[in-house]
């Protein structure tokens, strides 16, 4: 059951759009920085496969400039 955290850098001016898109994907918790163009993203999925699919969907978002992994955990079922 992977849990991962990322720093998500939006395209300039698209922070709100990226937030909305991430939340609508599900399995994503988003914490925006108040004063920088960056979001903290925590993903919570059931399997490695699910995690991979989610990551692909995130990376396909047009409002995302860069996604940087910070930490990853895999807990028991």
């Amino acid at each position, binding site marked *: 059951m992977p849990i991962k*955290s*990322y720093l998500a850098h939006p395209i300039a001016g698209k922070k709100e759009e990226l937030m909305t898109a991430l939340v609508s994907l599900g399995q994503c918790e988003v*914490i925006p920085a*108040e004063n920088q163009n960056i979001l903290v993203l925590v993903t919570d999925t059931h399997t490695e496969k699910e995690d991979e699919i989610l990551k692909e969907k995130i990376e396909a978002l047009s409002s995302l400039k860069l996604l940087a992994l910070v930490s990853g955990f895999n807990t028991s079922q």
Partner: protein
Amino acid sequence: MYDSLTNRRNFIKKMAMLSAITAAASMFPGIVFASEQEKGIPDNANLDWKKGPCRFCGVGCGILVGTENGKAVAVKGDPNSSVNKGLLCVKGYHQIMCIQSKDRLKTALVKKNGKYVETPLSEALDLVASKMKESIAQNGKDSVAMYTSGQSTIPEGYIASKFMKGAIGTNNLDCNARLCMASAVTGFLTSFGADEPMGCYEDIDHADYFVTWGNNMAEMHPVLFSRMLEQKAKRGAKIIDFATRTTRSSTASDKSILFEPQTDLALANAICYEIIQNGWVNKSFVEKHCSFSKGLTNIGYGLEDNFQFTDKPEKIDFEAYKEFLKDYSPEKVSKYSKVSVKDIKYLAAIYGDPNKKVVSYWCMGMNQHTRGTWINNLVYNIHLLTGKISQPGNGPFSLTGQPSACGTAREVGTFTHKLPHGVVTNEKDREMAAKIWKVPVERIPSKPTYHATEMFRAVDRGDINFIWVQATNPLVSLPKTSRYRPAMEKKSCFVVVSDVFPTPTTDVADVILPASWHIEKGGLYGNSERRTQYWQKMVESPGEATPDTWMFIEVARRMGFEDLFPYSKENHVEEIYNEYRQFHEGAKHGMAPLEVLKKESGAIWPYVNGKSTQWRYNAKYDPACSNGEDFHFYGKPDGKAVIWQRPFEDAPEKPDQEYPFWLNTGRVVEHWHTGSMTRRIPVLHQAMPNAYVEFHPDDAKSLGIRNGKNIKITSRRGSCTLPASINERGLPTKGQVFVPFFDENMLINDVTLDSFCPISKEPDYKKCAVKVERA
């Protein structure tokens, strides 16, 4: 089973989130995640939110602590606090996580036959009192000492002062604030006759330029820096970083100017030279409100035990001052400061432009300096010559590193020379203290004794036989710990340490007293902008951990001073504050009543007629001004601020053939001071698990040093081995190395020099000579 699995997943998610926030904090200066804590709180959580100041630095951010079933479970920024307006830094958010540390001190420990034995607190306090009495009986009052902290609450500092100076009758009381802002105090006193900044944080909202002198605010004061960045983005305010090392602050600033260590003295004079040469002096301001003085020169460095120095001020006139500055033309100063003539002129033009508002900020870079008082004076000179002072957006502003360095160390006065009002050398101040404390005035000695460095030298010499260290960790934070650690291990001195966690200082104690942490007791702190903030006890202390104030009172009572300490256990914070307020009655330093502080997120003194005074000495804002002019520097008998003639003098130790590098020490955003709290917060510890030594890439290349390689740093005092860091967090200039001091496993202060400013007695942690070799 399901619950525990859910809780574990929530915990892991929280850890993942905190890791990312911490990573962001180390990458983006001043980044703020205001809603982070609230997001983690379940919708149905029934939390009780209580306000208070943050436990860490001197900014004094307002926090709200959420408690549930007697436990602190969340922290968020207080939106009603004008200091941080709901923002917090990465340390602030995580602060309560340290109190659950497994190695928390919960019972008193007494060393018996070389081993610590858990002992009932009452019995341990009996022992402390008996040892103190025994030392006084055998060796006199000045054989006992107390070393407190800028983290002590106002009641703790007040009771420590009353106990040592009023009850026992010794001035052997000093504190770790001597190590961080004593030069700011002597700077303010010599220039203005009254301590602490004249302005407030609201200056940030008005200034056109922020000039930061040797001050990495992005890491040390992130919330204030984020407010500056906001003004930069919103109004186009400019940040000029003026320092000896490239930091996160430099990269976020509009311009970074690097200078050779110690030459800030010459550069400040060069700025004044340019201001005068270009006719940028605010003549009417200077004529009405300033006088000129010079003091002694070649004043020494305090390297010898029992070093003594007293300055001899002498009045001079503007012409003599102008003549003195001829040695500091930009062309002359540029040669040894390594700052271009163009950049010196650029800085002078910023200060000299009558249409631009300028705030100068500094902290340890200027204060931890063998000429700390002088460089403080010199920056005031710039503001005085241009009249840019005591107005919204214009002024010099010394920041503090500890939450109550101002409120406790400076205002209560936990220095050897201080009283809650004034100084021990002043008869009227002693009389006031004697009257309020209800002690004979003769009991309060009129001569200061040991400042911090000299106090530990006295321990080493065997002149102090009992020392009580409270809320600080000197065996990590003192300079030249290679001398003072063995000194504290000597049998000639009985060592008592009260703290929340074990530290290298508790390791040498004969008695360890378990102290309550911040929110486990009520208290008051005073921050850098003269703001006093109150908080009430929010959760119970574990085991027998007890507020330090109460332990002081218990020991004083055991020593026969019951009548001087009549406070009740339940209400002692309020009783003590009300007694203390009497010292500062009046328009120049009136403190807000506790009823006001209970309701509001702090109040700035002087608090007069129900109102905080944001800009002192300016008649528009300060009711204490009484000379009928726009400004009144009432701290001085003639009502004028002093422009000081202070020369450039070299550091006591400079790089040479044997020790070819400057060593500079400091802090990082993840850790606070000696790391005794922040290293027990898992997410902060993981983000920055150990100290390191920064190199300039050219130096690293010529020495064949790569990132992560262990390097031995050696000075004439000692050595320390740390991994190398090249082009990571900070970038020292060529010929300089930088080491953060938070790591008790890599004690860089074994290497530093215990030289100090002869006026302030504050040590210089920023400059000594070292050699480096691969370990």
